[in-house]
C-alpha cells in the first residue's frame, strides 16, 4: 500500500488528507486529483502505462459535476480490471447513512471512510 490516489474537489481537504497519509508508515506517495474528469484522464494514463497503478484510491463522494459514485461507475465501466486489484474507498464528511450504504454496496468499493481522517483511523483501517 504504497501508492495512493486521492480524488476530492476540495483542495484544502486534499492537502490535509495527503499530508496525513504521507505521515503513516505505509504510504510512499499520494497523487491528489481535484475533479472526476481529471481522475478519469489519470486512469486512462495508467491504462496506457504512462502512470503507475495505485494500491489505494480514495474518492470523495460529493464533488461538483460528477460525484464520487458516478465516477466509480464510470471507472468500473472503462477499467473493469480495477476490480479486485485496487483498494477503492469512498470518502466523505457526510453523516447520511445512505451514503455509507451506497459506498459499501458498490462493486468496486472496499469501504467507506468518514472525514476527518486521522493517522490513528487510517492505521486502524489499513492494518
Amino acid at each position: 500500500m504504497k501508492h495512493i490516489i486521492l480524488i476530492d474537489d476540495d483542495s484544502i481537504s486534499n492537502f490535509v488528507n495527503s499530508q496525513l497519509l504521507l505521515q503513516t508508515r505505509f504510504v510512499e506517495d499520494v497523487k491528489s486529483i481535484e475533479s472526476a474528469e481529471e481522475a478519469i484522464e489519470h486512469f486512462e494514463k495508467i491504462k496506457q502505462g504512462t502512470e503507475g497503478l495505485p494500491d489505494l484510491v480514495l474518492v470523495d463522494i460529493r464533488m461538483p459535476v460528477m460525484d464520487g459514485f458516478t465516477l466509480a461507475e464510470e471507472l468500473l465501466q472503462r477499467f473493469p480490471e480495477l476490480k479486485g486489484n485496487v483498494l477503492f474507498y469512498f470518502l466523505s464528511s457526510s453523516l447520511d447513512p445512505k451514503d455509507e450504504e451506497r459506498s459499501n454496496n458498490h462493486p468496486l468499493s472496499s469501504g467507506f471512510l468518514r472525514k476527518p481522517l486521522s493517522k490513528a483511523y487510517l492505521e486502524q483501517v489499513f492494518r
Partner: protein
Amino acid sequence: MQDHIHEKFEEREDERAILEIELLTDYLDKFSLVNSREELVDLSREIFEQKLPSQYTGLYLWNEEEQRLIMMVATGFSDEERIEAERTAMDRHVGQVYRSGEPILIDDTFDPNAVWSKDSKRNFKVRTRLVMPVKSFNRTVGVFIIASDKPNKFSTLEKSIFNVICKIAGYIYHHLDQLEKSESQNRKLADLALIATKTSNNVIIANRLGQIEWVNDAFIKQTGYSMEESIGQTPGKLLNNSLSPLETRIALREAISEGKHIKTEVTNQTKSGQTYTNEIDITPVLDDDGKVLKYISVQKDVTEKNQFVEELRTSSLKLKEINNRFETIAKFSRIGIWEWDVIENKTFWSDIAFQVFGVKNQIHDDMFTYWQSLIHPDDFERTLHSTYSLVEGKVNMVEAQYRSIDEAGQIRHLRGLTYMERDDNGQNLKMIGSVVDVSNEIIAANTLSTSEAKYRDIFNNNVAGVFRTTVEGQILDVNKSFLKTFGYEKEELRSTGLNKLYFSEQDREVYISELKVKGRLQNYFLRTRHKSGSAMDLLINVQLVHSDGESLVEGTLMDISEIRRAERKVQSSEMLFRGIFDNNLAGVFLVNSEGKIVDGNKSAAQILGVDGVFNEHDYHFSDFILSREKWDKIQNLIAENKIPASFRLQIMPLQGLNGLDVLLTCNQVELEGLGNCQLFTAIDTSEADLLNQKLIESEKRYRDLFENSLEIIQSFGPEGNLIFCNQKWFNTLGYTEEESTKMNLFDIIVPEEHEHCHNLFERVLNGESVQNIDVTFIGKTGNRVELNGNVVPMLKNGKMESTHSFFRDVSIEKKQKQAIEDQRKFYEKVLENVPAEISILDKDQTFLYLNPVSIASVSPRSNSVGKRLYDRLIEIGRTKEEVEYRIGKFKDAERLRTVVSFEENLQTMQGSQKTIMRQFFPLFDDQCKLDLMISVGTDVTELEDNRRRLLDNNEELRKVNHELDRFVYSVSHDLRAPIASVKGLLTLMRENEASDEVKKTYVDMMNTVMDRMDHVIFEILDYSRNSRLEVVAEKMDIVNLVKGAVNTYRHFSTKPVLLEVEENIQSEFYADSRRIQSVLNNLISNAIKYSLKGPQDIQLKVSVHVNSESLKLIISDNGEGIRESYIEKIFDMFYRASNTSSGSGLGLYICREVLKKLDGTISVKSEEGKGTSFTVMVPNSIPVK
C-alpha cells in the same frame, strides 16, 4: 427450558406452530403412560409448574355443568382449600367463557379483592386475568385462568404459550374422563363378577369353542367338579349330557356352532354320578364384528320346578273356584261375560251374555261375525272401530256403549267393557269382555232430558205470567205472558200502574193485606180484569221481597178463567157439562147429599187416585180429605150457603203415598135423579208450586245474565222503538230508564252512520242476522262509543217481532289499534327516510322488506319483495361474483351468529363508482335458528375518497420528509467538510514541526475554509428565511442594489469587474427587498466567481426594465458558461455544475425558491466558454392607493 421457548418464539412465526406440536406430542406421550388419577394430577402439576412463567397462576379445570372443580394445578391451593379455591377462581367470567368458548381478558387492576395466589413462589397481587376455555374434542370442559401481576395485556407470545397449555389441559381432561369411565366400567365388571359368583344359578363361561374358562361356586357345588377340573373341558362331555333327549343335544350343538341363543332343559350327571335336570340358557357374547367371543351359560336346577308345578295346579283349582264364584256373581248382576282365545279361535259366552243380547243360547262357529250381526246399524261402525283398535294393539281396553237388536226386534242399550290379554311381546292372546243391558238407564236419562226440554219450552214460551211490582202497584217488570194475560202493552201498565187490573178495589185490598200479613201467598185465587173489561180468575203465587230497604212484590200467575167458566157453565148447561166435564183439566166431581161421589171426570179420578168409574164404587169424598178440620168448617159454610169462592184442602189419593194440595171450588147443584149435589172442581197444585218455584229461579238466572252482561244488549221493535236494554246500555249511553222508554234506534246512532245502519236494520227486519258490524253510538252527553257486534231478528209466529243486538265496546281496542298503527307508521317513516339501505330477508334469503334507499331507483319495491337475494341482485345487474360474495357473507352471519360487515364496490346506474359498507345482522328465534336477516348498507364512497386523499397526502408528506432528510444531511455535510479540513490542518500543525511560513499557509487555508462555512451558513439562513418569512412589499431601487452587489462581490476575483447597466424605469418598483437582494447577490456573485480563466476582464451587463406591472432583470456575464447537459439541474438543491469554485450548491436553488414565493420566474441561457445570462421577472407590487 423457559428461556428456550422464548428464544424460539421470537425467531419466527411458523416455528411457533412447530414448537406447539412438539410440546404437545412430548406430553401426550407421557400422558398415555398414566394409569391413575393421582399420577395424572402429578404429571399435570409437573408440566404446569415447569411451563408456567412464575408470575402466572395455574390451571383450574372447572366443570360448569356440575359446578365443581375437577382439578387444579399450580395454583398454590391445597386440596383441603379446594372450596376456597373454587370461590376465588370462579366468578361470572368463568361461566361466560364456558358458554361462549372464547377467551376473555379481565382487568382486575381496580378490584381490591382481586385474586391472590396462595403459592409462596407466586405470591402477588393480581392485576389481569386471562380466562381461556379448555376444550376437549371441541367441547369446553374447563377453564384455564392465568393471572398476572402485570397490568398490561398479555403479549401474543404469551398467549400462544397458554394456548399450548390449554391444549394439553384439554387432553388431560379427556384422559381424566377416559380414566373415570374405565374405572366405572371396571366397577361394573366387578359387580357382575360378584353376581356371577354368588348367584345360586350355575354359571359357566366358555370360549368360542365351547371350552370352559370359568365356573362359579354354584356350579362347583352342584356338579362336584372343581374349577381346575372343569377348565378346558366341554360342558357336554364333562357332565355327560347323554341322558338328555337326542334332539336337545343336537339343538345345543347347533346353537353353539352358529353362535345363537338357546334356552332348553338338559339332564346331566354330577361327578358322583347323580343325574339332575337343569334349565339351561346359553348366550353368546359377540364382539363388534358379530363374532362370538365367549358363551355364558346359566343353568337353573328345575328339580324344584316340579314343586312349583304342583303349586300351580293347586292355585289353578283355586282359580276355578274363584271363577265359579265370579260366574255366580255375574249371573246375578246380569253381567254377560265372553271370552275369545285369539290363538285357538275358541269362543265362550256366558248364559247371561246371551240373555243380555236377548238371543238364543247357542255358540256359533264365528261368534265375532254373529256379534256384529246383533249390533244396531247406526252404531255398527263406531263399535267395530273401537274393537279393532283393541285388536291392533293400540289400546288394552275399550269401553263402548251401543245398541243391539234382540230376537224380538227390540232395541237394547248395551254397555261393554273389553280387555285384550297380551304376552310380553305384545302378541294378542285372549280377548275378554263383559256386557250389561243399560236400556233402563238410557230410557230414564232420555225421559229426564225430555222433561228438561219441556221445562225449557215452558219457560221459553213464558206460559206463566211473571211480575215484579211495588206494593203500591207500580210495575217494575213483567213478562210477556203477564201482558198477554191482561191484554195490555207494557207501556200502558208502566204509566197507569196495576190497580186497574183488579176486578174490584175490595179484591185488591184483601189480596194486598193478606200478602202483607203472610209475606207469601201460595196458590192464591184472585179475581182480575182483562183489558177488554172481562173478569179473569187467576191463580197467584206471590211473595214480598225486601231489597234495598224497599218492599217489592214478586210472583207468577196463571189464568184459570177457563176452569171457572167451565164450572159456571156446568150450572147452566147439562149438555155442555159433560163435554167440558170430561175434558176439563181440572178434576170435576159430584158429591150427593150423603157425601158419596157419584160422578167425576178423568182428572178427578187422577187426583183422587181411583179408577174412573165412580158409580160402581162407594167413594166418600170425606174419606179422601186429610185436613179434616178445615173441611168441617167448609161444610158448615156450605150448609149455610156461604160457599167460599175456592178453598184448599189436602187430599190423600187412594193409590198414592203423598197427600196433594188441591184447590177446590164448590157449587150446590140440583141434578135430575141425583137431587141436591155439590159440584166440586179440584186442581192439584203441588206440581204447579214446584214449577213456579223453578221458573222464578231460572228467570232470575237469565235476568242476572242479561243485566250483568258486559255486552250492550238491546232490543228494538220494527219501528225502531226500544223494547228493552240492559244495565250496560244505561251505563254506557248515560240515559235514564225513563228516557230510554222514548228512545228510537236512530237517536243513539251517530248521524253519519244513519244511512248505513238503516240498511242494516232493513236487512234484519227481513229476517237476516248481521254479524260483526261496526257502529258508533252517541250517548246522552254526546260521547261517542265505538261498538262491534251482531244483530239478530226475533220472530214470533213467523212475524218480525223485534231485533236483538249484542254489542261490545271497542273504543279502547280501536285506540290501541290506532296506537299500534301509529307506531308502525313511525318506524316505517324512519326506515323509509334513513339514509342507508335497509332490507330484511328471511332465512331462505327472500326479501321481506326493502326501504327506498335500497331500491335506489332500480325497480319498484313490490317487485323485489318476495324475491330471493340471488335473483334480485342478478336482476339489477350485479355480477355473479358480487352476488356470490354477498351470499357468502349472509351465510357467514348465519353461521357465526354475529354481525358481519364488509365493503362492496359497485357501479351505480349513473356509471360512477360507489363504495357501500354493508352489514348483516342475523336475528334468531327461540330455537336458535335464523329467523330474520337485517341488511344495512351505508354509502361510504365519500369516506373512501377521503381515505384515498389522505393516503395521497401521506405520500406527498413522505416525499417532503425525504427531501427534508436529504437537506439536513447535505447541510451537515457542507458544515462538516470545513470542520474536517480545519481539524486536519490543526493535526498537521500540532504534530509536525512546521516552519512559521508553513504554519501561515495552514492558517490561511483555515481562513478560506471558515469563509466557505460562513457562506454556507448564510445561504442556509437565506433559504430558511425565504421559506419562513412573510412577503413584505417595499419600494426598491434595483439599479442601486445591482451596483451595491457588484461592489460587494468584486473581491471574489482578482480580475477587474466592468459593469454596464441598461435601465428603463417607467414606474416605482415595489417588492420584498430582502428576497430580491438575495437573488441579486447570488446571481452577481456567481457571475464573478465563475469567470473564465484567463486575463480578460469580467464584463457584467445588467438590464433593468420596470413598469407598473413588473420588473424584468437580465444579468449577463462573459464567464465559463454552463455545459448544456447540466443546465436542467443547476436550480436543483445542492447541485454544483462547476469544478471551479466550491460553492454549496444552494445559491440558484434559493433563487428559484424565492421567485416562486414572489410569483416571479427565473430562466437561464448559457454557452460553455462564452458566458451566461439569467433573466428574472418579478411582479410589481405597487400598493393600491
